């Protein structure tokens, strides 16, 4: 099945040409199954989303095959159902704003917790590092829903956080943490934190610690060492980690659904709503393309900034 024969010792020219053609055909055959599955169930369907965003909404969900820009205009503008006047779609804008705000905050918090953690692991003796990394990887590969559910348990009214605060006497009634933006933020930081630690650690491992020694010899303070040596060297890892956290946060669906309790929506939930109760598939499709576009811009910025630097991936 492989084209090993094509790579055997040099052959006379004509025979080599025929072997080349053979190799090309083999390669195409080998690629076919993966390409077929991906085109049917990943890339191909995306084209339909683009098409659907330009169609007319059906009365009971679905679409009518008639060109319309309503899907796109209603991303930002809504028509009053009584008098037909147009106004800015406040509901959509506030959900966009919440998604971007929470995703940026998630990224920042993941960095604040993740950077020292990656540094800690990178400065352990070589044999210990694998174990610490395993401790990061285990939660990462634990079902997202289970982790979200675990956070829900902790911050619910009868949960550990409220019980502890009441036991110390800081509060005498449980504070409502669940179903707030705070809950979503906590959940997302918890769920996506390993995605920050992994790439930052990967680039931290390459850090030459004799540079730090040299800096200290030259009377640099710890803060200067951190700012002028460690952070510049680890920068590609930080950018990669930020993208890896920001992108799934922006499209998060499960975490805001479970921890936001159906009232604090994010972009992912808004999209779902249009395909469910909202019954506005073109709007849902337009929102999906918008989300995809934001993610692509973030990825392009990343590729520009990180250049050829490797991305450490799970």
């Amino acid at each position, binding site marked *: 099945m*492989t084209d090993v024969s094509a790579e055997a010792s040099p052959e006379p020219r004509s025979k080599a040409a025929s072997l080349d053609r053979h190799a090309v055909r083999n390669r195409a055959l080998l690629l076919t*199954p993966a390409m077929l599955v991906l085109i049917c169930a990943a890339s191909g*369907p995306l084209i339909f989303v683009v098409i659907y965003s330009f169609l007319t909404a059906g009365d009971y969900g679905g679409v009518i095959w008639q060109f319309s820009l309503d899907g796109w205009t209603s991303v930002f503008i809504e028509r009053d159902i009584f008098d037909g006047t147009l106004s800015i779609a406040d509901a959509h804008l506030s959900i966009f704003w919440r998604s971007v705000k929470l995703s940026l905050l998630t990224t920042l918090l993941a960095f604040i917790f993740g950077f020292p953690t990656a540094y800690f692991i990178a400065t352990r003796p070589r044999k210990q590092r694998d174990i610490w990394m395993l401790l990061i990887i285990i939660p990462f590969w634990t079902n997202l829903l289970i982790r979200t559910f675990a956070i829900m348990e902790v911050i619910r009214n009868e949960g550990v956080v409220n019980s502890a605060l009441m036991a110390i006497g800081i509060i005498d009634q449980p504070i409502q943490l669940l179903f707030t933006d705070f809950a979503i933020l906590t959940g997302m930081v918890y769920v996506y*934190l390993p995605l920050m630690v992994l790439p930052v650690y990967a680039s931290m491992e390459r850090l030459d610690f004799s540079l730090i020694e040299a800096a200290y010899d030259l009377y640099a303070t710890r803060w200067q060492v951190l700012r002028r040596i460690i952070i510049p060297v680890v920068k590609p890892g930080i950018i990669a980690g930020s993208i890896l956290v920001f992108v799934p946060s922006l499209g998060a669906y499960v975490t805001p659904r479970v921890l936001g309790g159906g009232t604090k929506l994010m972009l992912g939930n808004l999209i779902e709503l249009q395909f469910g109760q909202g019954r506005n598939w073109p709007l849902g499709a337009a929102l*999906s393309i918008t*989300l995809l576009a934001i993610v692509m811009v973030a990825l392009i910025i990343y590729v520009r900034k990180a250049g050829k630097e490797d991305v450490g991936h799970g």
Partner: protein
Amino acid sequence: MAKAFDLRKQTGFTPVAMLCFALLYMPIILLVVYSFNAGSAISDWQGFSFRWYEAAWQNEQVKEATVRSLIVAGAATLIATTAATLAALATTRGKPFKGQTAVFALINQPLMVPEIVTAVALLVVFALVKVQTGYTGLGYLILAHSAFCIPFAFMPIRARLQGMDLTLEQAAADLYATPWQAFRFVTLPLLWPGVLAGAMLAFVISLDDVVITEFVKTAGQDTLPTYMLGQLRRTVTPEINAISTALLAISVLLVVFFFLANRRKT
């Protein structure tokens, strides 16, 4: 102060790291502990019991969802791993070819597009196919899972292939092995750890998926995660903790096994 000045140490980093590990594990540990709660409230500890494990074991819906999860994950793993192995062979053998970038983009696409967008796209397309063909079986779920598992299977297999010595295959060819024989008796045995790693990743990824399954499934086709998501809307009992703990145990076992197997190799 003799030993205190460690050059590598940054003030405050170790406590933050420790806090980070504690925060990562505390919720999971609590979840596991409360799965053994004798009472029916989630956070009110009333003694140790296996009650909720028994309840989950006897719950028909849970059983069906488990079987369905395993069928989908098994089939998707088989398809994704086979497709990824063939694709990895195609992209590591011979010179770089025209369209290689496009092939990589296509393979990695499920990693870059937000899951919710893929889910919606599949909902739209499969709705059309369902109307045209009338077929409503598990095929849609298996196809969808196969697609997003391919990049995860592809990564370790390709990494393994890149680290392999090609001269053994060439020697086999010189000794008049057919390409198939060379593959069967030389390439595949060497590649096997990578294939196994890829299959394990694909299996865990498929078993864990919530979003795409939620959108693609036909009514009554719950997998374990979508069943749990549905339950979270109702009054939650520690039965959910018990199911989570079981699922958690499977993932942790697979990941630790994968990790150890990988470490021994290098």
